[in-house]
């Protein structure tokens, strides 16, 4: 029991994933700044933001909303993200081998933070938050189908293995999945899907600060907003790790492989940041059409290519 709690709260769960996530969030802002020829914030900037929100600021409760759901939603979202982080990171760090079917469990766990943000936004009783929540629901409806198709593709490519650990071992013996044409096609689709999952531009219409004034997070302040920020830091860390695990040959922390593993994750992160910086925010209808039609077609093309054998 004590061991499980340690896994969940400290390493590789909440604390560890959060700290790495804070560094990734800084990298996000710094690379963004460099792309725009700016200097960018200091390394500890996301940490200062988090401490300020957590300890200094007042938490304002909504007058017309449901206070219990408003406060519970960020906490449950954090727990969902942490559970996903544990399952994603344990096989990579070689702590346990996971269990059969964990890649399917991950699909559900990764959906929890977004669903909880929606619950929190609807509980706040603010009209702009509701608009944000409705947009987020539309986003979930669009990208989750592509996401499950991508996971199905990965399972097919790994000869019906349902375990993250074995998928990585298979890639280490037979070469990474991205080394084939179908792998490349699915990797591109997966990159776009996690962009939507992490709520980054061009798919950030749910929080669109210029039109909806932060949308789903509008009413949150102080500690509750700090928890949401922390959840987002964790997601920013584990989503690139997940993609690196299922497409880029898996992560392996031994000898020289440590360097390669870190480079793989950073590569996915930098690709996400560059997509974010080179695209304007889409309209919600455009985003839905983009996922439901084009990305799904792309994944299906990948599946067909896999059956043909390339």
């Amino acid at each position, binding site marked *: 029991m004590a061991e499980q709690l340690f896994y969940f709260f400290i390493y590789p769960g909440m604390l560890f994933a959060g700290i790495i996530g804070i560094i990734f969030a800084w990298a996000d802002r710094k690379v963004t700044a460099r792309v725009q020829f*700016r*200097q*960018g914030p*200091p390394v500890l*900037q996301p940490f200062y933001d988090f401490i*300020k929100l957590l300890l200094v600021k007042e938490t304002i409760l909504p007058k017309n909303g449901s206070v219990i759901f408003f406060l519970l939603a960020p906490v449950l979202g954090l727990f969902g993200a942490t559970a996903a982080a544990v399952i994603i990171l344990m096989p990579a760090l070689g702590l346990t081998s996971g269990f059969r079917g964990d890649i399917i469990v991950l699909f559900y766990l990764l959906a929890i933070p977004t669903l909880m943000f929606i619950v929190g936004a609807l509980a706040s009783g603010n009209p702009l938050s509701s608009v944000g929540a409705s947009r987020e629901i539309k986003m979930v409806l669009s990208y989750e189908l592509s996401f499950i198709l991508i996971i199905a593709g990965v399972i097919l490519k790994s000869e019906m293995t349902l375990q993250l650990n074995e998928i990585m071992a298979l890639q280490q013996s037979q070469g990474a999945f991205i080394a084939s044409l179908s792998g490349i096609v699915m990797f591109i689709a997966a990159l776009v899907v996690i962009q939507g999952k992490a709520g980054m531009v061009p798919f950030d219409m749910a929080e669109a*600060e210029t039109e909806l*004034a932060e949308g789903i997070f*509008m009413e949150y*302040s102080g500690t509750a907003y700090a928890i949401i920020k922390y959840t987002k830091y964790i997601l920013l860390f584990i989503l690139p790790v997940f993609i690196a695990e299922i497409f880029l040959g898996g992560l392996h922390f031994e000898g020289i492989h440590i360097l390669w593993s870190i480079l793989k994750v950073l590569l996915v992160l930098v690709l996400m940041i560059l997509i974010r910086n080179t695209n304007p925010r889409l309209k919600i209808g455009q985003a839905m059409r983009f996922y439901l039609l084009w990305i799904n077609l792309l994944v299906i093309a990948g599946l067909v290519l896999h059956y043909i054998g390339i």
Partner: protein
Amino acid sequence: MGLKSFSLKKSLWVFHFGGASCNNCDIEILDCLTPRYDVERFGIKLVGSPRHADVLLVNGSINKRDKPRLLEVYDQIAKPAFVVAFGACGCTGGIFAEGITFAGPVDTIIPVDAYIPGCPPKPEAMLSALMKLAETI
């Protein structure tokens, strides 16, 4: 200096309230976000919701219609928060001070922590004011 006040000092999020200005000050505020001045170096960023803000930046003259809205926004901000009056209009009323709809400079409506004079103030003036404000925390 504790961790709390240090983090607050290092991450001032600004909410911009534009009163009835001549629009020149708004453009000077946007200048601060450009690569040349880059306020993000100091952890300052513009936020869209008063719930997330630490600094309320008020520019332009406050007329009778703006006054209740300014009070409302001030109530919505999560405390501790600071108010900065930007430009001659924000500090004293400037060229609008004798108009019939003028409802008083900002500091007669809400408590103000820093004044930035100028018509419009330079972006450097805003940076220096925010730095001086951060030093008082």
